[in-house]
């Protein structure tokens, strides 16, 4: 009886071992004589295919890898689904002890873990975001920080939303209050700039990953009269599905979301981390292991606004979006809400 229990437990443990870490670095390949490839490891809260936050970084890493000449020049190892900080913390320490050149902790919740591990592995470089804290005040020198000025694209999407809406009701689906605040504040500011009387209904699902609730939130906004929707975090896949089914315009952020709603996704604010990653690599190769805080903006090409080429978008909408981007770049517009309450 006891043996039976232990055998069945063992079977399940073996099955469990199936889930876990992936290594994209290709196995058994020998490295060229001119030097080892640069090794990056990344720990992320959701998956490389979340069409949001995690994918934006993963796609950028792959772009840099291609730019540098493939796996011989840059290898990428990743851990997905590390929403729990304790799991992420263990993974960060693992990667550091395996001698990776750069360990990226892709989530604002990983800050403490990064600083803790960085203090123990001073020869390894770390990066984390969203944050501007490189730990300099703690005497830490091997940590980079990064973040996106999401309110810039939020503003432009807001302008687009205001021009598209016919009902003058717009719905926003946020994950956890506070997290998407930058984007949503910019969005509301953009809408108000064009249509001060338009109503922007905002609802939070309380989760980054609750696609079911996000889908229902989209239904709710549509029933409340919204004809343009936006939202952030990986939960939005549920909402885009509903927008698609109802033929309601969707404005994306973080990653390219057109594949999910080929007929309804109008624009995407895309986070392009490639320049940030490339700059970190060159700094590390020159012996500078941290200390820089990066910000993605339209001005430094970290943020991009892409229109869906497959659908017809009125020229005046595109023009208004371009003008808004230029105004942000030149500083003529400050895409932040006036009433700063937090």
């Amino acid at each position, binding site marked *: 009886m006891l043996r039976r*229990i232990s055998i069945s437990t063992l079977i*399940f443990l073996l099955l469990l071992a199936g889930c876990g870490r992936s290594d994209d670095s290709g196995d058994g390949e020998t490295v060229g004589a001119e030097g080892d490839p640069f090794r990056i490891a990344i720990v992320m809260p959701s998956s490389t*295919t979340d069409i949001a936050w995690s994918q934006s970084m993963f796609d950028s890493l792959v772009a840099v890898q291609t730019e540098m000449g493939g796996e011989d020049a840059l290898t990428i190892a990743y851990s997905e689904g590390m929403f729990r900080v304790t799991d992420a913390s263990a993974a960060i320490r693992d990667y550091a002890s395996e001698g990776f050149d750069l360990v990226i902790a892709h989530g604002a919740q990983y800050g403490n873990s990064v600083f803790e591990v960085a203090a123990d592995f001073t020869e390894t470089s770390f990066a984390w975001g969203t944050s501007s804290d490189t730990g300099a005040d703690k005497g830490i020198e091997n940590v980079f920080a990064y973040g996106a000025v999401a309110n810039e694209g939020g503003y432009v999407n807001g302008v687009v939303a205001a021009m598209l809406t016919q009902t003058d009701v717009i719905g926003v689906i946020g994950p956890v*209050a506070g997290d998407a605040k930058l984007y949503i504040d910019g969005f509301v500011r953009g809408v108000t700039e064009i249509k001060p009387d338009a109503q922007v209904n905002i*609802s939070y*699902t*309380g989760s980054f990953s609750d696609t*079911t609730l996000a889908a229902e939130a989209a*239904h709710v906004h549509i029933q409340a009269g919204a004809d343009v929707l936006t939202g952030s975090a990986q939960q939005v896949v549920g909402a885009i599905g509903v927008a698609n089914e109802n033929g309601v315009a969707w404005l994306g952020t973080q990653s390219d979301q057109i594949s999910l709603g080929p007929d309804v996704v109008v624009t995407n604010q895309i986070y392009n981390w490639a320049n940030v990653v490339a700059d970190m690599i060159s700094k590390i190769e020159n012996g500078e292991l941290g200390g820089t805080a990066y910000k993605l903006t339209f001005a430094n090409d970290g943020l991009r606004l892409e229109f869906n080429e497959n659908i017809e978008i009125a020229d005046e909408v595109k023009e208004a979006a371009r003008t808004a981007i230029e105004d942000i770049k030149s500083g003529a517009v400050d895409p932040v809400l006036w009433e700063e309450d937090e």
Partner: protein
Amino acid sequence: MLDELFTISTLVGILHSCVRLATPYLFAALGETFGQRSGVLNLGVDGIMLMGAFFAFYAVFEGHNLWVGVLVAIAIGVLMGLLKAFVSVTMQSLQGISGIGLYLFGLGLSSLLFKTLIGSVEGVSGFRQLAIPLLSDIPGLGHILFNHNALVYLAYLMVPLSWFVINRTTLGLKIRAVGHNPEAADTLGVSVNGVRYATLMIGGALAAVAGASLSIGLQNVFQENMTNGLGFIAVALVYFGSWRTVGVLGGSLLFSLVNALQLWVQALDIPVPSEVAVMMPYIMTIVVLAFTARQIQKPAALARSYERGE
């Protein structure tokens, strides 16, 4: 502001959301009720849901009919139920632990298959809203109850059907006997293991359809871990409903109602902090559990393996 919440159109909207949101809970919790009534606790519901969600989605993604997607999900659910039965009933491993194992197995395998077979998040055309003629024209009520997709109706049909099977058929009698007193059932010639295999396969099929109701019904996408722990809430709803189908229906509706309410409260900008709104379903759950703590109908042999004495 608050009077906005009590307009007819808002109330209809809230109830409409509630009825739709309850769909996956109903399928999964009714399935779990079968297992628990026969004495097996299956904590792997969420993993089975993910597998069902993936396979239904994949079938539709490959161009098959939506109902083929549902059938594929059912087949996968039955297999997952068999796996659970083999581990918990034949091998008699601890039910709680093996359930968690099954969950992680489903989570990992559905993610792996998604990555290898599809690779990126894609949309499909899922079950469309199907307004039932005449009935959907009833003012208010028609929209609330009769303007949903086919899987929503199916979920509600499962309530009387499950009740009938559990309370009015020979199989149901055997299920209850095995869950209450397996030794006595065994002496009367009922195959304890056979019945438990059957209930776990039924439960697996229903959990898989719950997953399908998300991936080809409510959202029409598949994403890794898209159930987001919904299966665990379904297990809790079985306790909540005191192992009765009507109780499960009540629990599912109540939980969904509070969820719908919080979404509407926020969307209409009713001055309740969003954090409080998001907490509402859970506060409600605790309150109701506190009042329904009496576990009169709890199957006496729940979570106990059965081994025939010599």
